[in-house]
């Protein structure tokens, strides 16, 4: 009888081991950039409902909250890899946080797809970390070209968040390109979590710039915009994809009306069967249009599953290789091709805040930035 029970339990345990394929989802669900985590999670869940299995196994998503902190991102990765034994990770959103978890995944040979980290350092020198979005050298140059040519801006005050690798990188790429085009740049600095920008604004606005470019995340972008408008600034307010969250408008109010920002997606900017289906599903489920991060979350999940199917295995190294062989994958944010460095070559979408929603303004193609 005892032997029988041992065998039964062993079989059950083994079956359990293979019962589901675990994918770690590491996102900032609480904290400063919680809106981003929420939006990516929405996209991933829609993707999973559409495609719940891979290679015949059920996909189990293990969601881990990084609380918008670097150290928590690293902890979450360690937990996902050692305790939960995930076969892959989707995450994080902020480049600083992805940079924190990347070494852990890399040394444990667990493939990572980040939906939205745009700093080039995230994939640099790594084999297991890839992304489904463009990188900041392109994003910064795109805004520089747009500001110089379309908005005729010649003097820009750049606000950099010293605590975020994303912001430091994006500011540099923008400034380099803008100065190369013949414009003038003034640098001011702040930190994530700052509330008072009066000193920075008094320095930035002293030269009467045509535009201010804020390369951090939406909580500070919203506050800087409010305080800038309060001080009488009438020029353009520009930002990167860190602005892409409904909370920008909630916190910023009328001050962010007309704010232009580079991002990955707008429902009006992309038209393929996958994008249309995603748009419909999202609208039915949440009653509003999806934001870039939801579409990117969806794409990250789909690209990952597609890579696993092509690798025909759950081996981390094989999956990581296949991810970088993704070519012309039809996604919700457009056609995705991931190069051998792990970066995706995509178009920059310029969105504008109109009242309480985001509207589409323009696209910038890679060749326009050469």
């Amino acid at each position, binding site marked *: 009888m005892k032997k029988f029970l041992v065998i039964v339990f062993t079989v059950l345990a083994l079956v359990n081991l293979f019962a589901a394929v675990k994918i770690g989802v590491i996102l900032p669900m609480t904290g400063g950039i919680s809106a981003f985590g929420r939006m990516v999670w929405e996209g991933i869940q829609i993707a999973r409902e559409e495609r719940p299995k891979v290679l015949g196994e059920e996909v189990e998503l293990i969601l881990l909250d990084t609380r918008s902190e670097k150290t928590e991102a690293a902890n979450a990765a360690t937990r996902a890899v050692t305790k939960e034994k995930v076969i892959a990770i989707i995450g994080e959103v902020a480049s600083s946080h992805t940079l924190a978890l990347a070494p852990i995944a890399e040394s444990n040979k667990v493939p990572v797809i980040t939906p939205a980290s745009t700093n080039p350092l995230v994939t640099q020198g790594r084999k297991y970390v890839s992304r489904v979005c463009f990188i900041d050298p392109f994003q910064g140059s795109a805004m520089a070209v747009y500001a110089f040519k379309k908005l005729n801006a010649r003097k820009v005050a750049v606000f950099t968040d010293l605590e975020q690798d994303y912001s430091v990188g994006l500011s540099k790429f923008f400034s380099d390109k803008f100065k190369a085009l013949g414009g003038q740049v003034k640098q001011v600095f702040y930190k994530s979590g700052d509330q008072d920008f009066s000193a920075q604004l008094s320095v930035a606005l002293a030269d009467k710039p045509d535009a201010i470019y804020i390369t951090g995340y939406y909580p500070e972008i919203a506050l800087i915009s409010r305080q800038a408008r309060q001080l009488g600034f009438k020029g353009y307010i520009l930002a990167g994809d860190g602005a892409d969250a409904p909370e920008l408008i909630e*916190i910023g109010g009328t001050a962010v009306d007309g704010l232009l920002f580079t991002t990955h997606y707008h429902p009006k900017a992309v038209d393929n069967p996958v994008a249309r289906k995603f748009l419909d599903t999202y609208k039915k489920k949440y009653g509003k249009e999806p934001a870039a991060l939801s579409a990117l979350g969806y794409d990250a999940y789909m690209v990952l599953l597609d890579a696993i199917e092509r690798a025909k295995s759950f081996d981390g190294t094989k999956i990581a290789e296949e991810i970088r062989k993704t070519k012309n994958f039809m996604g919700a944010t457009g056609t995705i091709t991931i190069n051998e460095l792990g970066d995706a070559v995509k178009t920059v979408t310029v969105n504008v805040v109109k009242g309480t929603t985001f509207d589409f303004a323009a696209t910038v193609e890679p060749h326009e930035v050469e």
Partner: protein
Amino acid sequence: MTFFLQNFFNGIMLGGLYALIAVGYSMVYGILRLINFAHGDVMMMGVYFAYYSAVVFSLNPILSFTVAVLGAAALGFLIDRVAYKPLRKAPRISALITAIGVSFFLENLAVVIFGAIPKSFLDVFKDKSILEKTITVADARIPLLTFLVIIVTFAMFSVLFFVVYKTKIGMAMRAIAADIPTTSLMGVNVDNVIGFTFALGSALAAAGGIMWAMRFPNVHPYMGFVPGLKAFIAAVFGGIGSISGAVLGGILLGMIEIFLAAYFPSVMGYRDAFAFIILITVLLVKPSGLLGKKAIEKV
């Protein structure tokens, strides 16, 4: 000239906000020799009380603020009763550690009850632009809120001064600051007076918090951490235990922070560091602060 004027008034605004929160901090220390690390979190709870009174119960702003201040006072009294009273006879460090515990508790309680997603304090006002009104002086834009902050700071200061120096309970508070056993021998209910002290300090924290939220409308469970820290630095700078010291320390700290960031742009990303450098310098050079009284060792 404009640049200087703009930064001067920015400094007064920020300094006034620090002063408001520092006053409560300093008073509690002055009476009880306890650095109430939970002060910033009581401030946060006060802001949430104001927010929910206005948004959920649709009270007008003035009424919401009154409810918030009274609610915070009650919360302060409750915290004293539950967390600090049992440790009256224990060494001071126990109360200090408990204060840190209360701080963590309040922050996480707020996460559970109110949610970690930030809310906008502007939702309290029907006319959201009311806080945006500015006046222009020599090309410098000064938000009207700056003057409101100054008025409220001095109002709080005056109220506190009146209570501590001109009322009976204030006299009891000062007596407790001098010597607790003797005060209780005089027939004063020490526990109640201490509870009242906390209630008063918490009410001030809530008032400071509401003003802070009007200037920086981002409401979230950890919002009290940085203002609490800066207010603590301001209180030490001005002389902890001295109410006028707290006001002076607060305004000076705000001014220094703004002017350093404005006139030395290369280090403006590190402006929080200036506050801590001030703290370390004060503790090394003149620990009793600018207006603090030297503690006399009674033998």
